[in-house]
């Protein structure tokens, strides 16, 4: 009887332990799989990203992309290189995906992972794209990809639609970062 009770208690204990450990494990597993984390933003979130904190002013590069956009995928390795070369020189770079929200934990982070992309990544989820597009640039019609460069004060100093020209973009960034000519080309 005593043995039965002990076995029963052991069984209960082990089941409690395994059930409490399982979510932790799966959470960790999910976290490992979801690196880099892609954060969802709405129109207000987008506007906040484009606003600059005057106390922490850095030049900002913004790339709009989507997994379905072939030229976006094509130019991404160059953007990852630019991020790696210039982040240490003070350039902030954010990538904003316009994929469907259901891709935020799957196709979008998967592509970023494949690209070894480590820049902050967002997914723009808005019911109406027009205000978001015009909040970025009144002359932009929404064609993808599109890349925008802002100086320390938040002024847009360069914009490009379609495949980036890496040398041209680097030259523009060089004008903004610490008077240091482009290294690591």
């Amino acid at each position, binding site marked *: 009887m005593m043995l039965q009770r002990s076995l029963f208690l052991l069984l209960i204990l082990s089941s409690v332990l395994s059930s409490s450990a399982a979510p932790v494990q799966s959470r960790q597993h999910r976290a490992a799989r979801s690196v880099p984390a892609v954060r969802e933003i709405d129109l207000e979130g987008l506007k906040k990203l484009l606003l600059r904190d005057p106390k922490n002013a850095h030049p900002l590069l913004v790339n709009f992309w989507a997994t379905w956009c072939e030229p976006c995928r094509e130019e991404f390795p160059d953007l990852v290189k630019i991020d790696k070369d210039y982040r240490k020189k003070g350039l902030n770079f954010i990538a904003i995906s*316009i994929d*469907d929200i259901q891709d935020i934990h799957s196709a979008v982070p998967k592509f970023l992972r494949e690209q070894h992309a480590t820049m902050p990544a967002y997914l723009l989820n808005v*019911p*109406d*794209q*027009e205000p978001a597009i015009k909040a970025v640039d009144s002359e932009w019609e929404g*064609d993808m990809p599109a890349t925008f460069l802002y100086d320390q004060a938040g002024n*847009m100093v*360069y*914009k490009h639609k379609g495949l980036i020209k890496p040398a041209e973009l680097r030259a523009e960034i060089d004008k903004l970062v610490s008077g240091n000519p482009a290294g690591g080309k």
Partner: protein
Amino acid sequence: MKKHYIAGLVLALLIATASVAFVHGVARAGDYPTAGAAIGQPIANFTLPDVNGNKHSLASLKGSKGTVLIFIAVQCPVSNAYNERMEKLAQDYKARGVNVIGINSNATESADDVKHHAAEHNLTFPILKDNNNKIADQLGAEHTPEAYLLDSGGKLVYRGRIDNARNAAMVQTSDLREAIDATIEGKPVTKTTAAAFGCSIKRAS
């Protein structure tokens, strides 16, 4: 002394504002064309071949009440998300005197590609092949799908998206349909432009 201080402050503010405006004004554009057809201006007649090589003029294809030109693509997922909606649009408005004409300006997609794609997706409206993206350049078309609505006199009355959502289940505003309805009724179009994300047109280099 106080007056001088205030005047100095105002001057500094003006200079700061002007310099910000100046920098905004000179945001250097890489490839960022903004020219194109203006709302209210007539669109000049043009002639383009269809997918079988037969030439058609805009004048020969236009509708009695209006004409919709839509820049479309074979491979663009956004354009493809609109295939059914574009076909339905063409069907719905044909009897009401508005004709839909597709234009493919992508250098990466041949007339044969366009022909097969149209057959596969049951697109029955005429689709023209804009070799060397001449018409895309003339109108300032940048992405697919992008619509241009001409009134019965051939003047541009709307340019931009078909509706607000790539996902048909999420449509809230049918901007193009609203513009067409107003045009048929002889009313001014209230929203003459509307942007949406799309695939950039692959121009001939």
